[in-house]
């Protein structure tokens, strides 16, 4: 439960309220991680929150993309290069990337849900010929809150079909408007031979998973990443209970055949 000190190596504001930090251990090596895993990030004296690892930086550290929504996330977003934070982890079960081999892949992100999916897309594109069609669909509240716009463009150049939609367009926006599920019409995939990775607000994940399943994707081939309140991340504090599961250890990534029935129960 004691964090290890990491130093902020770089800080890149992504959008209005979002920052990507790269972190390196003050001493020793940065442990490996699987796409979809998270760390507990500690802003000294302020608090600790779960944050997904959004990539490995060029120097070998973790990249983590944080949206300032409260005291801890704001304190972390304010950290400058050279300052220290505490890191525990990586924790949790990541995405089942190997299970997608040989299939069409749909990656669907809502809002900051793109952060834990970024290592997935990078892994898919790094072995491009191992997969069928790769589609990335991303939704944002407004064009200004869309994260990683340059990287999305790069993914398109590297052979992914990248589609973006916003809830609230501004005058410069010419793309589609609405919910992420609308983009499912715009991508090409063969449902029975498709694996999907979905992350975003719970309502978005349910709607997306339902739509994919309705089109014939097997519920066991749709993976979601859940968010629950977390304090310990090591199955001791009880906060992340989700029916019989602890999201910190049994998740955050769960298959829709497992999570779907439980997500349908209000207040579980």
């Amino acid at each position: 439960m004691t964090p290890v000190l990491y130093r902020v190596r770089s800080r890149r504001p992504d959008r209005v309220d979002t920052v990507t930090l790269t972190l390196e251990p003050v001493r020793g090596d940065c442990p490996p991680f699987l796409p979809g895993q998270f760390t507990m990030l500690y802003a000294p004296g302020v608090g600790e929150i779960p944050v997904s690892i959004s990539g490995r930086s060029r120097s070998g550290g973790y990249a983590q993309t944080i949206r300032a929504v409260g005291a801890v996330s704001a304190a972390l977003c304010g950290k400058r290069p050279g300052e220290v934070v505490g890191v525990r982890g990586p924790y949790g079960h990541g995405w089942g990337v190997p299970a997608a081999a040989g299939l069409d892949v749909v990656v669907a992100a809502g809002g900051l849900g793109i952060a834990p999916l970024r290592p997935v897309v990078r892994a898919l594109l790094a072995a491009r010929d191992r997969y069928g069609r790769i589609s990335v669909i991303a939704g944002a509240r407004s064009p200004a809150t869309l994260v990683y716009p340059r990287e999305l463009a790069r993914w398109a150049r590297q052979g992914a079909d990248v589609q973006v939609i916003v809830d609230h367009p501004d005058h410069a926006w010419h793309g589609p408007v609405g919910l992420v599920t609308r983009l499912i019409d715009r991508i090409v995939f063969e449902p029975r031979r498709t694996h999907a990775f979905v992350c975003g607000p719970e309502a978005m994940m349910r709607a997306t998973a339902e739509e994919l399943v309705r089109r014939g994707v097997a519920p066991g081939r749709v993976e979601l990443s859940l968010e629950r309140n977390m304090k310990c991340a090591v199955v001791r504090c009880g906060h992340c209970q989700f029916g019989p599961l602890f999201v910190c250890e049994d998740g955050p990534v769960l298959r829709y055949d497992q999570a779907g029935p439980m997500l349908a129960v209000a207040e579980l």
Partner: protein
Amino acid sequence: MDAVVIESLEPLIAELRSRGFAVVGPVVRDGAIRFEEIASAGRLPRGVTDDQDPGRYRLRETGDEMIFSFAASPDSAKRYTQPPRQVLFRMRGERIEEAEEEAPRIALLGVRACDLAAIGVQDRVFLGGRHPDPAYRLRREALLLIAVNCAVPGGTCFCVSMGTGPRVTAGHDLALTELAAPHRFLVEIGSERGEEIVRALPYAPAPARDLADAEEVSRTAAGRMGRHVETEGIQERLSAHDSPRWQQVGARCLTCANCTMVCPTCFCTTVEDSTSLADGTAERAERWDSCFTLGFSEVNGTPVRSSNPGRYRQWLTHKFSTWIDQFGMSGCVGCGRCITWCPVGIDVTEELANLP
């Protein structure tokens, strides 16, 4: 060494203290049986019993010389296995110091079978998984458990239903059965540590009659359970997520968290971070938390379980059903504390019985 008989607890307490144990036992305080450090057997609650019913706890004098004529008290061993608040670490500049792990040697006197079972549940939670808690292990190893076989179960007890009592069978260093006329204690040995301590006391081998009397105490106690739970098919019954019962009990529940605070197995905690203005150090502490609070499940600014029925259902379902999925055992040991200490007298056994 088989069972022995001792005439008084005074030499036992003295022996434990001379071995460096703080002896923690039951005393009368604030109109209840509480647990605190004692120096002599004179502090133990002689001639007192408790009446326990849903939302009701009263002490009553019996006028006899018996010391352990009461049932579960608001305190449980959890206070010593998992303290209500503990500092985890301090950060000074760019250095993190782990909290000095204090594990005082404590002899808990008067622990009941249900409470030993509760410690067994905690052992599974804190030591049985993939991330064992070293601080818990230290505290646990420093704990000596001197159990007492229940003679007078409370009106809210149901350990027989949960298979945890009333007779002590495992997890103890010593187990006492209090016998009357003449007043004496049958001592059964549960561990090598326990045996070593008994060898240092004035004792007599137990005659067959005392062994039979002790058996009779437990048999009588088992027949006097205040309550009962049908555990057969309990997980199926608790899968009725939309039973109207949840609305009814939720309408009564004050979400005060009392039931979780007195429960010997409820393990949920939260953390508090603070900084000292004096020396600039940052500190992180862990303290008991409860799934009945709104903030417990908050994500994205809204609690996952915002309604009273939702939170009550989470608690009951966890205790009696999902705990089994998670840890292979029930999270309830039948001590009845949550029933007694619920200000509105919500009774888990009644709620379970009324599910479809």
